[in-house]
């Protein structure tokens, strides 16, 4: 029986306004692969960043080899034998493989000149161990992502990592590359390295995990032993709560199609395509895990992502959209995910933000009529209940909810046909949240088609008339209201049918 190499006990971490981790406990044995599962925002990354020394916990204890330790920074983590391979690779592609492996701790001759011979021969040992047949002198920029990732693992091994954290290591790998990685992980395990494996892909977890630890809303949601691991069991633990449905029943959806897109390809997934239609007055929720390509799809429809070969039809008329201007002309508007940087100009006044996309409507003899602008802005602010001392206040000074209402106000004066919301209530307090839902509903009732991208499961299930679930750049399924459940959505979101 192997002994525990790592124990994290009752770890708690609070960020302003959110309890990210609430007394989370996880244990890893020597030579064991532990998979960490959970929905977006369940606390997986926060927990691992604490282990990697990026964040400090507010409470709880960490034991390495049975000794209580405090990990104050990344160097501490390295010294305790913890290696962290991030989802976003941390390699410098202008250096060679060996230079990356030994970055920051190069052996030197005469104290200044890098001992290239040594770093090359030493790197080779680790590359061999990972079954990687490349020269250590290869510039990293010439390697595919999968091999760059291996270099990062080699770097962790060269630092004597006994516990290796892999955060979504396969998110940008092909199938064969993934299999290769999994076999490397198995080899490492048999050589005594412990691995914490974070992935949204349940198939991989099933294949390599000795144990699955599931988090939900920042708490432990359960542990599955090797023989208990299966798709449904993991999903059940990830989801596991009853949703309170305090939303209004759906509006009656018109039968006629308002918006249709065929074979849309985004820059992120050029080989996958998306097709769907939305009826008049219908709210279609777009669910999926982070990186499924939902935002890119929205941006492509709005003309700000370079998409190709798509056929877009609005109210029966086929049209071509190659810029946001085209989209706006066709009544397609986007309320973007990052409202502070893409939705608004923070140091512009509310009035200037609201009128920006429709400025031509406020001109007389070629010049802007501030009076007309003010009148419309004032009306919009009253209609949407924007709480502000004046319409001349800079948008940057408003709360998240009020900012979101200003983004909405930009579009409402323009007669929308399709309104796309990307994470409409992220970072918004409960009160403003229900106001935004109400606005969305009111718009639908007026016949506007609504595409609502959300990672908030309650929002998806409660607000949508129909749910489209995306996985890796394509829609894996649609769910009607009566067949929608968290389990059904998650199943499609992780790529199942």
């Amino acid at each position, binding site marked *: 029986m192997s002994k525990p190499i790592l124990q994290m006990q009752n770890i708690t971490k609070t960020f302003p306004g959110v309890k990210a981790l609430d007394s989370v406990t996880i244990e890893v044995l020597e030579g064991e692969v532990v998979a960490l599962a959970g929905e977006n925002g369940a606390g997986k990354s926060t927990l691992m960043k604490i282990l990697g020394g990026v964040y400090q916990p507010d409470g709880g204890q960490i034991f390495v080899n049975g000794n209580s330790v405090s990990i104050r920074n990344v160097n501490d983590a390295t010294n305790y034998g913890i290696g962290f391979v991030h989802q976003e690779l941390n390699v410098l592609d202008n250096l060679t493989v060996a230079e990356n492996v030994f970055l920051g701790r190069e052996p030197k001759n005469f104290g200044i000149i890098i001992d290239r011979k040594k770093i090359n021969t030493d790197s080779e040992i680790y590359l061999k161990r990972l079954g990687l047949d490349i020269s250590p002198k290869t510039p990293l920029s010439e390697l595919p992502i999968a091999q760059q990732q291996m270099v990062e693992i080699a770097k962790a091994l060269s630092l004597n990592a006994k516990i290796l954290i892999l955060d979504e290591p396969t998110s940008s790998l092909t199938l064969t590359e993934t299999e290769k990685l999994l076999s490397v992980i198995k080899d490492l395990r048999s050589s005594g390295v412990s691995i914490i494996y974070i992935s949204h892909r349940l198939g991989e977890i099933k294949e390599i995990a000795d144990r699955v630890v599931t988090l939900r809303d920042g708490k432990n949601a359960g542990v599955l032993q090797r023989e208990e691991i299966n798709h449904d069991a993991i999903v059940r633990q990830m989801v596991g709560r009853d949703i309170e449905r305090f939303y209004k029943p759906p509006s009656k959806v018109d039968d006629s199609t308002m918006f249709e897109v065929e074979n849309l390809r985004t820059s992120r997934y050029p080989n996958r395509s998306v097709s769907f239609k939305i009826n008049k007055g219908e709210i279609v929720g777009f669910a999926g895990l982070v990186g499924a390509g939902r935002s890119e799809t929205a941006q492509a429809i709005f003309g700000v992502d370079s998409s190709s070969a798509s056929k877009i039809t609005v109210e029966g008329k086929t049209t071509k959209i190659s*810029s*946001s201007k085209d989209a706006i002309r066709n009544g397609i508007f986007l309320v973007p995910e990052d409202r502070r*940087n893409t939705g608004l100009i*923070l140091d*512009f006044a509310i009035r200037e933000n609201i009128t*920006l996309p429709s*400025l031509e409507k406020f*001109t007389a003899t070629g*010049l*802007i009529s501030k009076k007309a602008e003010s009148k419309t802005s004032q009306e919009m602010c009253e209609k949407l209940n924007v709480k502000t001392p004046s319409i001349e206040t800079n948008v940057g000074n408003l709360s998240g909810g009020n900012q979101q209402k200003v983004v909405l106000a930009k579009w409402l004066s323009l007669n929308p046909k399709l309104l796309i919301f990307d994470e409409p209530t992220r970072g918004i307090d409960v009160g403003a949240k229900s106001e935004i839902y109400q606005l969305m509903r009111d718009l639908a009732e007026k016949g506007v088609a609504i595409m609502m991208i959300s990672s908030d499961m309650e929002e998806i299930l409660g607000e949508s008339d129909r749910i489209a679930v995306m996985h890796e750049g394509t829609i894996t399924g649609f769910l009607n209201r009566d067949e929608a459940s968290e389990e059904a959505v998650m199943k499609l979101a992780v790529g199942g049918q």
Partner: protein
Amino acid sequence: MKKELGIFVILAIVCVTLAILSPEFITATNLQNNARLIGIYGIFAIGMGIVIMTGGIDLSVGSVSALLGVVLSMLLVEWKIPPFLAVLIVILLTTALGFLNGVLITKVKLQAFIVTLCGLLFYRGLSRYVTNDNTKGFGNAEGFETLKFLASDNIFGIPTPFILLLIIAVIMWVILHRSVWGRYLFAVGRNEIASKYSGINSDLMIISAYVVCGLLTGIAGVLLAFYTNSISPSSHGNSYELYAVAAAVLGGCSLRGGTGSIFGILVGTALLQVLRNLVNLLGIPSSLDFAVMGVVIMLGVLADQLLQGKRQK
């Protein structure tokens, strides 16, 4: 607007102090001289200011004005082209060069600093090559007295370049602060992505800013050529791009883009010119000319930074 008022107060203080220290400052000739130069520099600076408001910069304007001077002299003196046509040609030329800058920056996605730095070097070299490094001029301006008049005469005692500056400033003020184009320009300067997400063609806005800068550089360049009446290809318009940047920044344009006003640029230009005049009148060695300018710009920017820090607290 507070920013511009602050710099205006500084200008007033400098003027009053200078008038007390050196009565020569308020003589008609000296004031006229200052006004004439403010007129020429101001037109350059408004063009630069528009570009800076988009977050860009145009380092080529000095060299472009040298090229313009050289070409204009050749058109008028050597080829005897009618004055009106000649002026039209050179202004179209500088406008086209502005367009080229804009296209390289937005469509080819090169950095504005690099693109216009190459312009600075290239047009200077070109001017020297086509003239064999010989100084060009307009002699007694026979046949194109009107042009000479525009650059170096007065109307009711007010230098014509200054009057032209005021006319251009009013037009640009309306365009920048009252038209859709102006609002879009500020929006793109503040946040290009959000502007794009509001349906603004930001590339087109940026290109048009460089075009306007090219156009104003052309007008100022014509005035400058006739004002000096002697275009030495290796030094004509040297460092003018930097005076223009300095005036715009002093007048409240941030190099980050998105801020600035025509009024501020005018005041900034005037302050710079009065400072040079001050160095001259107070008998400060003229070699310190640049040093004084540098210190004052630094003080102006520092004061602004401190005030902003306070406002944010």
